[in-house]
């Protein structure tokens, strides 16, 4: 420390030297000019370009992300809409099917009722016709029987009574 103190104070270190100042200035300016041209210019412009490139890449990524998000949102909306549509269609189909089924059932029931009624009617008619036929047959048979009886015993009085009895009987039976 003391040694350095002596050196500093004994001069030399702080002596001005115009030659050195001149050479420093010249050297520095030359280095500055050349390096500005060959090194700092390209490097700084490259750095700036890269900065811009990175910024634009970030911007692009952001816009792409926003776009993707909007598309996703749209897709979701569409999917939800499609779901709702499908639900609606199914519901409507079900309702229609129910309606058709009830209609058909009702129609079938009505038809069967009608058919049953018609059948009953027909049965009644047939019955009535059969009764008529039977009545005619019975009358014929009675006439034939009477004929036979008459032929075998021509007892008019008795016959008459018999016939009358028969007729009465038949009438009573009929009613």
């Amino acid at each position, binding site marked *: 420390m003391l040694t350095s103190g002596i050196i500093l104070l004994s001069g030399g270190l702080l002596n001005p030297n115009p030659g050195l100042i001149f050479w*420093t200035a010249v050297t520095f300016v030359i280095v500055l000019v050349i390096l500005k041209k060959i090194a700092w210019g390209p490097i700084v412009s490259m750095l700036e370009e890269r900065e811009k490139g990175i910024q634009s890449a970030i911007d692009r990524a952001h816009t792409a992300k926003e776009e993707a998000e909007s598309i996703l949102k749209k897709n979701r909306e569409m999917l939800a809409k499609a779901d709702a549509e499908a639900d609606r269609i199914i519901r409507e189909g079900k309702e229609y099917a129910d309606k058709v089924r009830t209609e058909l059932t009702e129609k079938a029931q009505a038809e069967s009722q009608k058919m049953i009624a018609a059948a009953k009617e027909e049965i009644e008619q047939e019955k009535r016709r059969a009764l008529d036929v039977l009545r005619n047959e019975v009358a014929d048979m009675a006439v034939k029987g009477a004929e036979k009886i008459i032929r075998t015993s021509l007892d008019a009085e008795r016959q008459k009574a018999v016939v009358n009895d028969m007729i009465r009987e038949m009438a009573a039976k009929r009613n």
Partner: protein
Amino acid sequence: MRVKANAKILALIVPVLLGLNSLSGVNSAYAETQAHESLPAAAAPAAVHAPAEAHDAHGTEAAGAHGSHEEKAGDVIMHHVQDSNVLAFEPFGEIVLPHIEVAGYDLSITKHVVMMWIAAVILLLVGAAAGAGIKKISIRQAPSGIANVIEALVDFIRLDVAKSNIGHGYEKHLPYLITVFFFILVCNLLGLIPYGATATGNINVTLTLSIFTFLITQIAAFKELGVGGYVKHLTAGTHWSLWIIMIPIEIIGQFTKPFALTIRLFANMTAGHIIILSLIFISFILKSYIVAAAVSVPFAIFIYLLELFVAFLQAFVFTMLSALFIGLATAHEEHDSHELEASGHH
């Protein structure tokens, strides 16, 4: 004048120097007598006995011999740190540099000029390589090798030094700041290699660089503020009654900034070298291998590593402060006008 000053300083510190010298003398005598004994054992008693015997020696021994011995060490250190007209390559010889004188001015090529030129050549080669490397690659590719290193430093100076201190319009000053950083850095590092010398440890070199900063600061301030703004800047926005104090202070402030830059760089680089050399010379003065092995070499290595750090740090500090001064000179008034605008809006 100088001889007188020398004599005064010598008179002040001769007792201390004598103490040191007698200490060395005792130590060497001790080493001679106990040469065959183990050295570490000898070191401890020497340290214990030295102060007491030093007092005796102080009374008996003559002053002249020791004084000259100390001057020799100082001369060597001074010779190493100072500029000279020879490039010494001990023990191989030396190159005597040409002496040039133009119009009465001494423009001779000195050791520091040569070192600066070496630094310039290194810078130009590195810069050319980096520039070529940058030009070769496209914008989408990452730079490699030397271009990558330079680009990282350039980007650091661009963003953390220039942009953050100067603000808008920093691009104009960028080439100067980058160049001054690399120039000082290479000059600093050249002083740390064998046979090298620190050009930035010469006050003339640092003064020149500071003058560049000073000129750039003043020109930038004039361009940015105009003459009226520049004068207004000198009043520092104070009341007119304070101007008689403020204006001289501000004008002095304009000059203290480059002065501080000059002294800071010069002192840092010189001090480191003087400390390294002083540490080495302790072992020569004390004539002891133990001191050399235990003190001089480890501490010198430590200071050397510190110097490596300081080489980068001082290059950064000079650049940083240059940017700061430019920023202070240009952006301050703008800030005020912004404030005025803001208050006008309210």
